C-alpha cells in the first residue's frame, strides 16, 4: 500500500500540488488525468523523490519515503521506477547499457565508473529487452531508435530495477497511436503478470478508461475525482477539464490513442487535451 498524505508542492507563488491524499493498494493500475499544469507530473515526481515535497508525507509499506536520504533514497528511486514522456535515455550509448543503468543503484562506484556491469545484470537486461521484443536493437545507439522503441527501452530499464511501483509520466504523449498501444499494453502486462502497482499520467481519457482500474482526476493541484472509470461521468469530466462552453460535448475520441475508435473523425472541440 502506497499512502500519500496531504502532499503539497509550492514553486514560488504557484501551488502545483495542493494537499493530495491517496491510498493505492498493491497491484492497482491507476490513471491520473487532468489538464496540463494540474499537478500530475509533480505528484509523480514527488513519489519518486525527483522533486522534494513542500509538505505532507509519502509512506510505502510502512516505510517513510519522505525522510529517506543518501543510499536509501537511491534504493527507493530504483524500487519505484519512472518512465518519462521524452524517454530520457542516454542517446549516445547502446540500448543494452541503457537498460543495465537500471541496476545502477545496486552497482558499486568503481564498477559503475568503468561501465563494467556484472554478468547477472547483463542477463537481466537481455531478458527484459526480450520481453519487449528489442533484442535485435540491443547494440544500437539508443538515440537512433524510433520513439516507440525508445519508450520500450525505458520500460525494460524500469523492469531491471526490479521495482514494486512503476510511475509513468505521460508515457505515450510523444508517440503515434500504434506505438502508444504497444506501450500501454506493456504497462498493463507488467501490472497484470508481475503484480506491480502502476501509476500513469495520461492526456487521453479513453486510454485511462480502457487500461486503468482506477482513475484519479486532478485540477489545480487537487484531486477532483477518485474512483472507477465507470463512475467518471460526462458532468464530472466537464468539471475537471473546465470546458468554456458547457453546451459542447467533450469528445474523448479526439485525443484517443486507440485505433478502433478512430481519431480521424473531424471534431473541433478538442478540449480533452
Amino acid at each position, binding site marked *: 500500500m502506497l499512502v500519500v498524505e496531504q502532499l503539497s508542492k509550492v514553486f514560488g507563488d504557484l501551488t502545483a500540488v495542493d494537499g493530495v491524499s491517496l491510498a493505492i493498494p498493491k497491484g492497482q493500475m491507476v490513471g491520473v488525468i487532468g489538464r496540463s499544469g494540474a499537478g500530475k507530473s509533480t505528484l509523480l515526481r514527488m513519489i*519518486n523523490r*525527483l522533486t522534494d515535497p513542500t509538505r505532507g508525507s509519502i509512506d510505502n509499506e510502512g516505510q517513510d519515503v519522505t525522510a529517506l536520504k543518501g543510499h536509501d533514497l*537511491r*534504493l*527507493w*528511486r*530504483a524500487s519505484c*521506477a*519512472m518512465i*518519462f514522456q*521524452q*524517454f*530520457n*535515455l*542516454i*542517446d*549516445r*550509448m*547502446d540500448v543494452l*547499457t541503457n537498460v543495465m*543503468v*537500471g541496476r*545502477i*543503484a545496486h*552497482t558499486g*562506484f568503481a564498477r*559503475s*565508473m568503468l*561501465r563494467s556491469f556484472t554478468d547477472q545484470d547483463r542477463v537481466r537486461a537481455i531478458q527484459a529487452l526480450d520481453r519487449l521484443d528489442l533484442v535485435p536493437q540491443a*547494440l*544500437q*545507439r539508443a538515440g537512433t531508435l524510433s520513439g516507440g522503441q525508445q519508450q520500450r527501452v*525505458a520500460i525494460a*530499464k524500469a523492469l531491471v*530495477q526490479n521495482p514494486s511501483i512503476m510511475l509513468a509520466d505521460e508515457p505515450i504523449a510523444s508517440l503515434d497511436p500504434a506505438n502508444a498501444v504497444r506501450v500501454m499494453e506493456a504497462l498493463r502486462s507488467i501490472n497484470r503478470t508481475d503484480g506491480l502497482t502502476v501509476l500513469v499520467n495520461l492526456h487521453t481519457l479513453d486510454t485511462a478508461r480502457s487500461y486503468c482500474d482506477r482513475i484519479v482526476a486532478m485540477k489545480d493541484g487537487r484531486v477532483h475525482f477518485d474512483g472507477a472509470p465507470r463512475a467518471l461521468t460526462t458532468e464530472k469530466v466537464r468539471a475537471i477539464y473546465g470546458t468554456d462552453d458547457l453546451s459542447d460535448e467533450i469528445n474523448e475520441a479526439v485525443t484517443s490513442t486507440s485505433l478502433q475508435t478512430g481519431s480521424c473523425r473531424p471534431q473541433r472541440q478538442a478540449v480533452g487535451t
Partner: protein
Amino acid sequence: MADLILSDGASGAICPLLKTGPAMTALSPAIEQFEINYAAARKSALRTSRLSIILFAACFLGASWIGGFFDMTDVTLPDGTRVSMWKIWAGLPRLGEYLYKTLPVLHWETLGTDIANWFWRWKVWLELLIETILIAYMATFLGVIGAFLLSFPASRNLAPKNFVLNATRRYLEIVRTVPELVWALIFVFCFGVGPLAGVLAIGLHATGALGKLYSEANENADMRQVEGIKASGGSWFDQVRYGIVPQVVPNIISYTLLRFEINVRASSIIGFVGAGGLGQEIRVAMSLQEYTDLSALFLIIFVTVILIDTISEKVRHRIIGLTGQGV
C-alpha cells in the same frame, strides 16, 4: 487571403501590397494591430542597431587612440630632411626589412649546401623539436585530467553545492589568468631549468582554459538524460558518468586536440625563460641577430603545427564519427 499574407510575409512587405489591393477592407482588426506592433518593433530594432554601431565605433577609436595607432614619429628622409610621420606608415617598411633579413640566400646550383647551411644546427633543433612536442603532449595530458575532473563541479547545472561551484570556478580562473610564461618563470625558480618546469606551466594553464570550455559543454548538455539516471537511483557520480559524459565526449575531444595545437605553440616559446623546448634557440638567435636561424626555426614550428593540425582533425573526425558504443 492566407496565401497572400504568407507569400508577402516572406518579402517583408505585407503592408504596402495589401493597402493597394482590394483586400484592404477585409483586414481583420488583429492583422491591423499586428501591423502597428510590427512597425513599432522594426523601429525599435533599427534604433538599437544604430546605437550599437555608434557605441562600437567609439570604443574602437578610443582603443586605437590608447593603443598608439595615431601616434606620430620623426623620420629622416633619404635627402636628409626630418619630417613628422604617422608611426604605422613609418614603421611598415621596417617590418619588410626585418623579414627580408631572415630570408636565407639560396642558389639553384648549390641548393643542397645552401639548405644545409640554413639548417646548420638541425641536429640540435630536431632534438629540441621533439622535446617541444613532448612538453605539449605531457602538458595537454595533465591539463585534460585536471580540467575533466574539475569541469563537473564547475558546471552550474551539476555542482552539488554553491560553494563547490564557486571554489572550482575561481581556481580555474586563477590558473588560466596567469600566462604560461609567468607560470614557467615560477616553476623554473622552483624546479630549475628544463622541460619539467615547462610541462607544469603549460599543464596548469591548460587546466584552467580547458576546464572552462569543458564546463560550458556540460552546461549545454541535455538534463533529461541526467534525470533518467537519477530516477533509476544513480548517485551524483553515476549521473555525471552516464548522463553527461557520453553527451560531451565529442566536445571534449575537439577542445583537447585544439588545446594540443595551442600547447605546441606555447611550448615552443617557453624556452625563452629556460623551461625547455625550441624557445631557447629562438632567444639565442634573436639576441645574436642570427636572422636566418630565426626563419629556419619559424619554418620548423610552422610545418609541425600544420602537421599536428591535419592529424588532429583526422583523429577528431574518426572518433566523433564512430557509431555504436559511445563512451
